[in-house]
């Protein structure tokens, strides 16, 4: 079974976001880079399917050369090969990205049975690339998947909806975009991490093309500063806790 998973290099989140002066980018001076939890699940799913059915997982990204680092992380998680579409420093829109990815898939010597994407990227969240790739390649596509079963030439995919779930069967090859919760990604072992650093990564330069979508400005949402205060420790604090609860009219 040949599986392709696509990932995107994004800044680590979890801290206050600062923007660059032109407000077109996140200031990443003190931030590390990663790929999103959705995509981690995509990689893990691919690795688990190959463990079960045999075959290969190829991990692909479009981005600057430094995105090789994320490919290596995915390889450390168990992916077999890495493929970098070197898009330079410029941000690629979803349509341009999808075209470049679809072309790379078509140009590849491998006939992929399953193309796994994160449901949306962690930074831009356009929800488009997986769907557009499916469209360009003429493949069936299911999105927002949190449960996936792959059988002989067919996949069963489950999507959560309010009050229940939808179950789809798709013929392979197919595109599936997945969400966090699909599985529990395993931490890479040190040996895998080390070997991934030595793994070769195929590198191509996709043809740059215009995208209809243009980023005008980023804005950091207002955050609610709710400072925590330690009002006491051990049983002696009980009285004060009650005071606060009364003040908040919860008791």
């Amino acid at each position, binding site marked *: 079974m040949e599986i392709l998973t696509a990932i995107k290099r994004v800044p680590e989140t979890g801290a206050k976001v600062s923007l660059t002066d032109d407000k077109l980018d996140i200031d990443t001076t003190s*931030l590390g880079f990663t790929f999103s939890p959705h995509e981690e699940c995509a990689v893990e799913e691919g690795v688990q399917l190959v463990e079960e059915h045999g075959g290969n997982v190829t991990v692909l990204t479009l981005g600057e050369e430094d995105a090789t680092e994320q490919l290596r992380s995915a390889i450390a998680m168990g992916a077999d090969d890495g493929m970098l579409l070197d898009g330079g420093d410029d941000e690629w829109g979803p349509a341009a990205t999808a075209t470049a990815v679809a072309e790379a898939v078509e140009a590849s010597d491998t006939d992929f049975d399953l193309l796994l994407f994160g449901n949306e990227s962690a930074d831009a969240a356009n929800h488009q690339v997986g769907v557009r790739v499916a469209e360009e390649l003429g493949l069936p596509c299911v999105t927002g998947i949190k449960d996936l079963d792959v059988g002989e030439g067919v996949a069963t995919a489950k999507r959560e909806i309010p009050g229940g779930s939808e179950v789809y069967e798709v013929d392979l090859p197919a595109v599936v975009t997945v969400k966090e919760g699909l599985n529990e990604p395993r931490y890479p072992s040190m040996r895998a991490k080390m070997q991934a*650093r030595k793994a070769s990564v195929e590198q191509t330069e996709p043809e740059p093309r215009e995208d209809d979508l243009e980023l005008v400005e980023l804005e950091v949402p207002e955050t609610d500063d709710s400072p925590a205060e330690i009002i006491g420790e051990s049983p002696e604090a009980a009285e004060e806790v009650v005071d606060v609860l009364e003040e908040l009219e919860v008791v």
Partner: protein
Amino acid sequence: MSRTDFPSTTGTVVIGAGIVGSSLVGELAERGREDILLIDKGPLSDPGGSTGHASNFIFPVEHSKDMTKITSDSRDIYREFGVFTNSGGIELARTEERMEELKRRVVSAKAFGEDAELLTPEEVEELVPYVNTDIIKGGFHSTDAGTCDPLRAGELYRQQAEEKNALRTAPNTEVTDLHVEDGEITAVETDKGTVEADEVVIAAGLWSPKIADMAGVDIPLTPAVHQMVSVGPVERFEEGPEGEINYPVVRDMDTQMYERQHGNDIEVGSYEHRPILWDVEDVPSIEESPLSPTQPPLTEDAFEKSMEHALEIIPDVLDDPDAGIRHSIDGLLSVTPDGHPLLGPIPEVDGLWSCAAIWIKEAPAIAREVSKWMTKGHPDIDIVAHDHIARFDEYGETDEFVKSRAHEGFQKIYDIVHPREQWQSTRPLRTSAFYNRQEDLDAEFFEAGGWERPRWFESNADLVDKYEDQIEDLQRPNEWDSRWWSDIILGEHLHLRNNAGMIGDTGFGIFDIIGSDAYENMERLCVASMDIDVGDAAYTPILAPNAGFVADLTVARLGKNHYRVITGGAHAGQDRTWFGNHLEGDAELIGRSSELCTLGVWGPNAEALMDSISEEPMTADSFDFAEMKEVTINGVTAKALRISYVGEFGWEIYAPMDRGQRLWDTIYEAGQEHNIRPVGTGVYGETGRMEKGYRLMGAELEIDYNPAEAGLTFHGVKDADFIGKDAYAEAIDEENTATLCTLSVTDHAPDGGEPRFMTGGEPILDQDGEVLIDDEGRRSYVTSAGTGPSIGKHLLLSYLPQEYAEEGQELQVEYFGQHYPVEVEVAGNGGVFDPENDRLFRKEY
């Protein structure tokens, strides 16, 4: 503490609530400080500095008495708080060279009072079954090593101070400015308000330079990356007894890494990667940091080699099928230009202190010693000689210097560092007027206080042949013994004793004390009487109130209200700060180090040479010992002081730097007729001084020993009051507990084989092989070692318990695990060579 609670005035402000600041407030409260405010920009108990991501292990053995003591005291404090686990620690050797180093570590452990033993690979395996013993030669077992919880210790320290009602704490409070008026600290400005205080300690770890800058001063350190990852869960650790640590911490010394079990994880840390230095300005704020400001993400490519090495040494653990890398960071810590902490009063601003660049393993005891320094004027463990922030005074504070030395020093953290090893980066930095001439003579330069000083001259290599008979038995065939050393030093020594030598620049720290109260101040600071004639000079110890040594130096009186202080270059900043902080009334300190160069001319021919070129007479008859006079030499006006650190007749000549080269040329050229040779500080600081038993500050002279024990009571007790007088007088009256002795090695190869030559720091043993310990618990070790070519012996200085301090006493010294017989040559003050000082006083040439 909310904005309304923030005080407007307090006694002491401590900035930084990591383990250092928290320990310090506890220790200050213990010593009676009643009104302390602890400020940190972060929350408690982990404000986000290096304390929060440290590996927390404590290996007590260092090749330094003071650091071993500081570390073992810190361990005891952690233990008293109940936050120390005695896991033991093992340093592994993958190479024979490292195995030798581990032997040296066992010797240091013995010298400084820690338990340690060498292990075979099989013994390592018994203690840590997951180490791959196929690739190691053996190990060093520090049985009393372990791990601690510094965040909890910090909490307990703060609690202690709060219980005494001595502490207020202001977390989440950012310092925005320091107010300095007339050279004194007056207030600390924060985002919660401004607090007045006349005593402020910067204990802000890697942010310390930024805080210091607010007062216009430097704390020379840089943030540097120490990479670490955490791998788990490891099944083996889950099967073992519950607890944070059940196996000794392992240091894989040759790869500069450590592996430490932590619950069901193994923590792998590295100092092997390329040095990655940060600018403090780039360290993110707490809000901007996903983990913490000091835990930026791992630089993956830098860690590649470390992963390979970790997999080599503990494959069983790391290849556990369920274990993955759960956590990985570029941990930021503070690195200084020489790897030592930055402690003590900051010279330029009264009341402002530095307590920075301190490892977890040292923090509580350093805080304790700094608190003593703040409250009673001196610490009890000598953290002044090597850790005083003033040691970089006047030269070592630029970003270029700090960064280049930190870059170099980072690679020495786990490296085998020879005691004489020299720094390579940012050199030459301070060059005297003689430098170019010395380079022409192929000088091998060593550095002291930033100054380039010739250690020996390759151009003197012919002297080795000339004196072959005398030198032959003193050659050092072992590579370690001869590293950073040359037999040319022995040749230069004999040449000087037979003819004449010129030595310079000595790199002295020189400063003047001027003012109508100069005399009173000098009298109060010095053991020797300062009621000396204008033109006279005196050697004097400077004591702490406990009569321990703060400095030893030469003072010349240039005028009624004008004294000149001349001290060793490596100690210049410390002494300047001590004087500066103790001056009262009308007395000003003016630095002269960079404007004066010093050239020593000594030996039997010195008199004839100098008298022939000086316009004024320069003879034994015209110049008393310790007399300083102005002389004119071929157009250069200089001051000449008849004194010697090599035990020969001659002078130290202090000339303006701009005329130094002319002075050098004149003496060198005229000296050819008198067979003069430029010789290095190998003679000045080692061979010459050791033969004469002259003491060295920071080696023999330190806070732990008084002048009676050091044999320096020849001044008696003057009538005038001076700092340390009572304790000094008492020390003279009482019988010594220990006395500084000169010993010689009587057999360099007792078991045959290669003769060995000690370098210093080795324990002195009795005939049964037990380390000598005096009644105050002080252990005997070699404070200085050096060869005496004129007497044909290798000499050692060591404090010995009184019952052993007798000429002829036979003892042993341990070196790399072997015992060598030694004999006491001189008990107390005095030279092995020319004990009557006939040469110094020119009674015999």
